[in-house]
């Protein structure tokens, strides 16, 4: 958490102001009993009503001042804490945006969302708490002791002794409760897991008539959680009565000690009554700190998760000295030279000594079973990953020597799962290239066979696409994703199994239209369908991370055992008729 608070640097001055305000606020609160003791000692004891009114006026003035400070403090701490939240959130988002695909998947999109939103809010709430409540406790304690000392040293000792005792009691309760509540969180997760299984697997549970067993699992988790929750709450239940007991016993002690001091004429009655107030105020301030300790475990685990993100450096970044893009050599040739790649931590490489060249104006198809390394291979072109050894070249330049924006600007990538964004059809297509004209967008949509259904949408190109494109079919999304890549007019097209959701006829039409559009570009296609691959200029056959054959369809049928197997086994009948 402290590490995270370094991001507060720009607020240093304001934090200082908040501290001053808090000090003023606590002094104001503490002065009230002091003034009241004057009312007693100078007014009541001496029967001077003028003094009573005068000190009453002072009290009113003090309390207005103190409230003013509190409000100002609240203003600044609101700005600091929410501002801090903004900084942290922004930092996480900016960092996560630059993570490589691998890093991103390592943490997981859902977890990153939680870290950016909920975890940040947790930490922000914690900071608010510290700035408005926690900060008061030490001020109150110190100020209160000073004031008590100034009235009577002997009596002040009561306070000085009580405070650490209170701290200890509090410490012991929390020492028991914090691990318990952590354990409880684990048990809540467990019950969620079982419940999630019940919901997600409802068919299988019923198919195997396993409702009872599932219920037993749930019951066990439920009992476990319930018992822990009871223990936690019982322990927490000690807190309030214990603190109040100590507060009350302190009052008794003050009265007892005070009575002797008064009898000895070293102290006045007003001072004794004031001391009761000090005790109450100090102990309440300390008590408020307990609220922080309640939040602390959760906030600090949030902070830990946030730090994990902020400490992770994007492992794929621009080179220190990027090679400038030379306009004249722009062609789009892609060459793999002896490329070996291994996912971090994996024993076996996902790709071993892969070498091939994809020429401009040609279609290079990549085929192979799942897990054979096809997607890994094409992911190396836009540098979703970096090679372990060997080189990936674009027009003879190592992709790692180019600026990322230059490199990726030349690639039109169509992913396996078409992902669209909230906005209109137009904004989604312009994602490919911001400067594209309307007619270019229409042309791309026509080529991608998307014109038909876009024309049928209520507002054509201005139609809204809701989050993730849930109002479109899989095939429609794929066609828009292809159009998006076309809008980019890249030198290199990479299609990662992007025709899978299209029906047979559309697939054929689309490929025919694409031929004309991509005549001068390098086209790399990962495909499952043999029909998609059959016309490619060059087919690269992958098996188990290795290239086991390169050639045209007819040639490979004769020379490659693996290719023959694939052709024979992968007749995706189911997709034809939709």
């Amino acid at each position: 958490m402290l590490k995270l608070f370094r991001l507060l640097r720009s607020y240093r001055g304001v934090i200082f102001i908040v501290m001053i305000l808090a000090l003023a606020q606590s002094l104001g609160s503490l002065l009230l009993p002091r003034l009241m003791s004057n009312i007693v000692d100078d007014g009541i004891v001496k029967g001077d009503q003028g003094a009573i009114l005068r000190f009453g006026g002072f009290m009113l003035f003090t309390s207005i001042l103190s409230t003013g400070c509190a409000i100002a403090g609240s203003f600044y701490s609101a700005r600091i804490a929410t501002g801090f939240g903004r900084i942290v959130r922004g930092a996480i988002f900016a960092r996560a945006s630059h993570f490589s695909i691998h890093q991103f998947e390592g943490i997981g999109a859902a977890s990153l969302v939680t870290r950016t939103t909920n975890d940040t809010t947790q930490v922000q709430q914690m900071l608010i708490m510290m700035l408005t409540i926690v900060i008061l406790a030490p001020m109150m304690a110190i100020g209160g002791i000073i004031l008590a000392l100034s009235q009577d040293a002997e009596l002040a000792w009561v306070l000085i002794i009580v405070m650490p005792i209170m701290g200890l009691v509090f410490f012991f309760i929390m020492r028991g409760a914090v691990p318990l509540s952590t354990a409880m969180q684990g048990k809540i997760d467990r019950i969620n897991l079982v419940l999630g299984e019940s919901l997600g697997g409802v068919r299988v549970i019923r198919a195997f008539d396993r409702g009872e067993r599932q219920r037993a699992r749930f019951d066990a988790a439920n009992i476990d959680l319930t018992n822990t929750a009871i223990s936690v709450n019982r322990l927490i239940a000690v807190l309030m009565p214990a603190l109040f007991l100590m507060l009350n016993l302190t009052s008794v002690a003050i009265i007892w000690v005070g009575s002797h001091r008064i009898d000895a004429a070293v102290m006045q009655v007003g001072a004794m009554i004031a001391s009761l107030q000090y005790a109450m105020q100090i102990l309440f301030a300390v008590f408020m700190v307990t609220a922080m300790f309640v939040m602390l475990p959760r906030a600090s685990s949030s902070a830990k998760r946030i730090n994990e993100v902020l400490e992770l450096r994007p492992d794929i970044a621009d080179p220190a000295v990027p090679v400038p893009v030379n306009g004249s050599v722009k062609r789009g040739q892609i060459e793999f030279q002896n490329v070996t790649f291994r996912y971090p931590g994996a024993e076996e490489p996902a790709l071993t000594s892969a070498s091939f060249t994809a020429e401009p104006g040609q279609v290079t198809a990549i085929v192979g079973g799942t897990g054979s390394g096809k997607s890994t291979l094409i992911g190396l072109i836009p540098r979703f990953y970096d090679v372990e050894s060997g080189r990936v070249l674009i027009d003879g330049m190592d992709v790692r020597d180019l600026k990322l924006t230059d490199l990726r600007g030349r690639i039109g990538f169509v992913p396996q799962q078409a992902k669209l964004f909230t906005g209109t059809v137009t904004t989604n297509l312009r994602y490919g290239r911001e400067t594209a004209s309307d007619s270019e967008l229409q042309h791309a949509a026509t080529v991608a066979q998307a014109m038909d259904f876009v024309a049928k949408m209520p507002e054509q190109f201005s139609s809204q696409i809701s989050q993730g494109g849930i109002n479109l079919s899989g095939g429609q999304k794929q066609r828009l994703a292809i159009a998006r890549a076309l809008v980019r007019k890249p030198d290199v097209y990479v299609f990662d199994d992007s025709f899978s959701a299209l029906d047979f006829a559309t697939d054929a039409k689309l490929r025919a239209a694409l031929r004309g559009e991509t005549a001068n570009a390098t086209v790399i296609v990962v495909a499952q369908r043999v029909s998609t691959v059959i016309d490619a200029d060059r087919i690269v056959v992958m098996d188990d991370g290795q290239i086991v054959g390169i050639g045209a369809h007819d040639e490979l049928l004769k020379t490659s055992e693996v290719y023959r197997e694939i052709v024979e086994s992968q007749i995706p009948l189911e997709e034809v008729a939709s």
Partner: protein
Amino acid sequence: MSPAGRNQNGPIAAPPPPRPIFGPGPMAGLGMPTQKAKNFKGTLRRLLGYLQPHRLALTVVIVTGCIGTVFSVLGPKILGRATTMIFEGYVAKRMHVPGGGIDFAGVGKILLGLIGLYLISSTFQYLMQFLMARIAQRTVYTMRQEVEAKFDRLPLKFFDSRTRGEVMSRAVNDMDSIGSTLQQNLTQLLTSVLTLIGVITMMLTISWILTIVIFLTLPLSIALVMRIAKRSQKFFVQQQAALSALNGHVAEMYGGHTIVTAFGHEKKSIETFDALNETYYNGAWRAQFVSGIIMPTTMFVGNLGFVMVAVIGGVLVTRRAIAIGDVQAFIQYGRQFSMPITQLSGIANMIQLTIVAAERVFELLDEPEETPDAAEAVVISNPRGAVQFDEVSFRYKSDEPLIEDLTLDVAPGQMIAIVGPTGAGKTTLVNLLMRFYDVDKGAICVDGVDIRRMKRGALRRMFGMVLQDTWLFSGTIRENIAYGGDRADHEALMHAARMAHADHFIRTLPEAYDTPINEEASNLSQGQKQLLTIARAFLADPAVLILDEATSSVDTRTEVLIQRAMAELMRGRTTFVIAHRLSTIRNADLILMLEHGRIVERGTHQELLAANGHYADLYNSQFASRAAMTT
């Protein structure tokens, strides 16, 4: 296996903010926008009904709460008496009254009594919370059990028409809210009300003038807080809107990270984020600030009362109208007075929210259930696997006909191939055969018995399913395979695994059959998972099989194994196959050609080719060209 994949494939949603375990402070709930319950009274009554079994314990809670509170309310008054005694002694001594001086014995007696009083008060307050912990948690436990049991009785339709997150949020988050409210707010309500009454009574016994003074501050405090709360509500709404826009952007950009990266849109996405972040900040700090004023304001009003009591009380003491100790007691009461009031307004808000949560849980519990199993269920002891569809009609939506008057007669051991695009077709078949959904018209019979006359569990045990969507749970490999059979012995289990060609890969795992499968089953490949489900089916030894031949996402070698295992599994069993293979179709006793989930053609391979319809088109476009390719 979820039909149309609705359950799992939704966009990533930001989870709801967690609620602290220890519950909110006294100020929580103030100024936040509230939701309205649809039927507050009814829901409250029903919720209280759950406390019924704990009546006795609750009575004890109330009694201990009363004792604890009454004793703590008495404290200041008695403490004040000690102060008065000291004061009088002190004054007498100053006036040199003979025998004057502080009566230490008297003071000591009072203080000792006080210590006893406080000890009792704290003990009873602790007891109250202690007992309440069990009541609250056991109540939530019961409700959770009910929800889980309810899931068992809900028709599949319920699960298919809702996202998992929606159901989870009711079963988990709403339940949590109920739990914390029962734990904290009920007792708080009790003690706050009692304290309020007690304090007012005590104050009145001391001085009605001072009581009126304190009471005058009350409307001021309420008016101020209401004003602030109203303003902050506006900001909270603003903040909430900005937050959901922000969260939406985050979820979407993270969900599409690959595309954002591939198209180099990081900068633009960050710019959009920064703008949203700024908007959120502008709402958030205002909301925070305005709600942050509430505490100083109430404190100020409290201090105002304090000052007035000190001044007026002081004047009254000089006029001998009241004793000094009473002023001291009054100041303490004045402080105790405002606390339950702020607490009560917070509690009111929390209870409101809890009723909304309870309402959502009860809605779940009130969902219509499946028709219960027939009372005198027919038991088929040795199922042969004959399946008949007798003029079956079925539709998911009343206005979209799906299956109309389908009649089918499948003899034991026959193979039915289902051909056509993915989608609702095969799911519907599974839904009907396994009686996840009931037919609208007609009947489905197994071995001549209408499946509605059997126990669902017994019916389902006659079927084995091997689908692409394998469902494994966190547990060991052994447990996952045995899911198909009760207490299978090791030999039978291994035999099933061997038959499924799964034995070999299982043995290469670190702990073989006892290797745990983790939450997402990510330590197994897709193909291995499929082999496990085949092993599961072998062990269960069902009379009828439902198979999906699709093996996408499986490497070629494993695929061969899966095919072989499936072929063995099918032997001698009635089988419905979602067919992807030429050989399967050719060998099928009957082919059902599906389009958009509806059966458009039926017949054997030869018959359908001769009919020259959809099937023939499909066959010619795909298999004929494939025949050309391989030659």
